[in-house]
């Protein structure tokens, strides 16, 4: 595995939001075929990291390097990062009034392929994916995220991921807002999406998603730093002992 280049590779990333440094030197490599999870309490910087990696203009990377499949990501705009194979499932997806889910996805696919998708092909794949996620067909002609419940929004994020088929999927708190049935359905889709040629970086507060989507590596983020890394067992320890345990255990080693 070490022979291969990582799909996602960032080193010593520092992120600033409104003049405040929220990520303070984070490094991680995600190789193809891997699932990583970053866990951490609220306000630890998990979402800031995802937003910064996707290129949100308010989250500036002030220091560090980041590569997507060997390409320097930091010089790319969000659309270029998307074309290069990065995807972010948003924690709070925005409503786009008047733009139907189907129209939006066709437009997005067109931008990726440089040409319009064949209508019947698109329709077939789109309906299949909606079906897999138990999304009612009526959502195709509903306006994107407008009036959707929290769970519906998250499902539609995963629908977008499945349609765009990225190399690296950043899933930001995808489990929040999902009831147990929806959580299983969404996890199923994430597992079905995952293969030897892509990588996933999950960002989550809770362990429960990890019962269904098994990470190879778990990292703990506290105050803008990754303070501990381990295997899937680390998530279980966190579930049992809480984040205080890590904070205590790492105090002294890390300035918090």
């Amino acid at each position: 595995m070490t022979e291969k280049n990582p799909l996602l590779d960032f080193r010593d990333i520092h992120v600033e939001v409104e003049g405040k440094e929220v990520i303070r030197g984070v490094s991680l490599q995600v190789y193809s075929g891997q699932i990583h999870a970053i866990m951490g309490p609220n306000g630890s910087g998990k979402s800031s990291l995802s937003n910064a990696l996707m290129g949100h203009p308010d989250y500036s990377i002030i220091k560090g390097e980041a590569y997507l499949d060997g390409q320097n990501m930091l010089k790319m705009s969000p659309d270029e990062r998307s074309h290069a194979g990065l995807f972010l499932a948003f924690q709070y997806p925005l409503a786009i009034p008047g733009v139907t889910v189907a129209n939006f996805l066709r437009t997005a696919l067109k931008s990726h392929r440089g040409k319009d998708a064949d209508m019947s092909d698109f329709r077939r794949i789109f309906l299949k994916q909606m079906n897999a996620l138990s999304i009612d067909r009526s959502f195709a002609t509903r306006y994107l995220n407008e009036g959707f419940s929290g769970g519906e929004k998250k499902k539609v994020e995963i629908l977008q991921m499945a349609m765009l088929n990225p190399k690296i999927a950043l899933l930001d708190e995808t489990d929040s807002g999902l009831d147990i049935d929806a959580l299983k359905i969404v996890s199923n889709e994430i597992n079905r999406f995952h293969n030897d040629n892509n990588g996933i970086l999950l960002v989550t507060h809770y362990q429960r998603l990890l019962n269904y989507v098994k990470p190879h590596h778990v990292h703990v983020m506290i105050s803008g730093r990754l303070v501990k890394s381990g295997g899937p067992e680390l998530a279980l320890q966190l579930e049992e002992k809480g984040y205080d345990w890590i904070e205590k255990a790492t105090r002294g080693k890390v300035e918090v």
Partner: protein
Amino acid sequence: MSDSAKQPNSDLTNLNNDYATKYGFRDPVDYFHKGAKGINHEVVEMISKLKKEPRWMTDRRHEALDMFFSKPIPQWGNTALLNEIDFQNIYYFVKPVKEMSKDWDDVPEYIKKTFDRLGIPEAEKKFLGGVSAQYESEVVYHSMRDDLKKQGVIFLSMDGGLHEQEEVVRKYFGTVVPPADNKFAALNTAVWSGGSFIYVPPGLDVKIPLQAYFRINVENMGQFERTLIIADKGSRVHYIEGCTAPIYSTESLHAAVVEVIALEGAYIRYTTIQNWARNIFNLVTKRASAYRNATVEWIDGNIGSRLSMKYPCIQLVGEGAKAEVLSVAFAGINQHQDAGAKVIHAAPNTSSRITSKSISKDNGRASYRGLVKIYKNAVNSKASVECDALLIGEEARSDTYPTMEIDNDQVKVEHEARVSKVAEEQLFYLTSRGLTEDEARLLIVNGFMEPFTKELPMEYAVELNRLIELEMEGTVG
């Protein structure tokens, strides 16, 4: 954003070429009748004589011209721009061919070429009920499906209507928009030429939309079409006009009058998409009367022009009548869209809904100017007004001038106004899915207009989206 990974958007590039050939071309000016510039009683007499009009129409024209001379330029709206109009530097009548053609073969070749580029014959094959394409001041091409004719639908040019249906025209002409209404209505009455005349007999439901294409092609030429639509009791009709105009270098005036009459139980929808060249003054008086249980709907899209002033009006004169105005205005660089709607509730149990959407970009300015008047006798009436403005860029401007005059308290009135900007967060969301910022902004704008677009027949919706795409090119911020 850098240019490196930006996909060459062939659609946009092609569209641009398309636009140049499709809308920007002009044919050589070689007209049969081209009068002198300027306006006086002699010009009016000549217009009427050339058209072989009955004397009563000639007299109306002269009376209207006097009203035009005596009325001041409106002292509201964009007066600075209005004062720029030089009435003596405009052609008031141009007639490109000797006779109106009913057969496509009779249409001169260069005009056919224009229509081919506009896609008229193609569109006709698909779903046109009748085509009345206005080229210059005269209708040159006019066709109607045989079955419509058999059903008794009269769809003529206004000039044709005057000759073939003189009594009907005489009965209704100027009853909804009298020449004294405003300076531009007076001017139109004096020099009108072209436009459509439609009569739908009682109880008939015209299933296919009736359409007309309009076009201006001479510099400094005013276009003063006059349209009269009468839907007799219980009938239904949808009329569509789409306008494109080439790009000019000097000012051009467009002052149309549209009169619409929906008799008891009738339904009329009037759809307009206007895309005027950027230097055109578009000053239009559109008004409808809806009788008992009748419905009138204005679907009105305004793109382009230097200044548009347009307030489609519906007078609800019969009990139970309904009005709907749905409009979109797009104000790009150096443009002012002063648009809105008026509804007059003059009978009980009437209802109205106005939805006005505007987009201002760069230093463009969109104003909503509206009036809802509910008379004392119009008890149990309902009115709702919704204004929605989208601003693109720091200099873009939107204003709202809503007026409500409510003379009785047994009514339900709602008014909502919203101004929004294209949000940074929305742009990020869409760009993270691979859309460029321009594409993302366009998608947001198209979404904003969707409540309007979805009311249009497919061809027009596609056309409108492409026009907006052009207008949105190179937007910053």
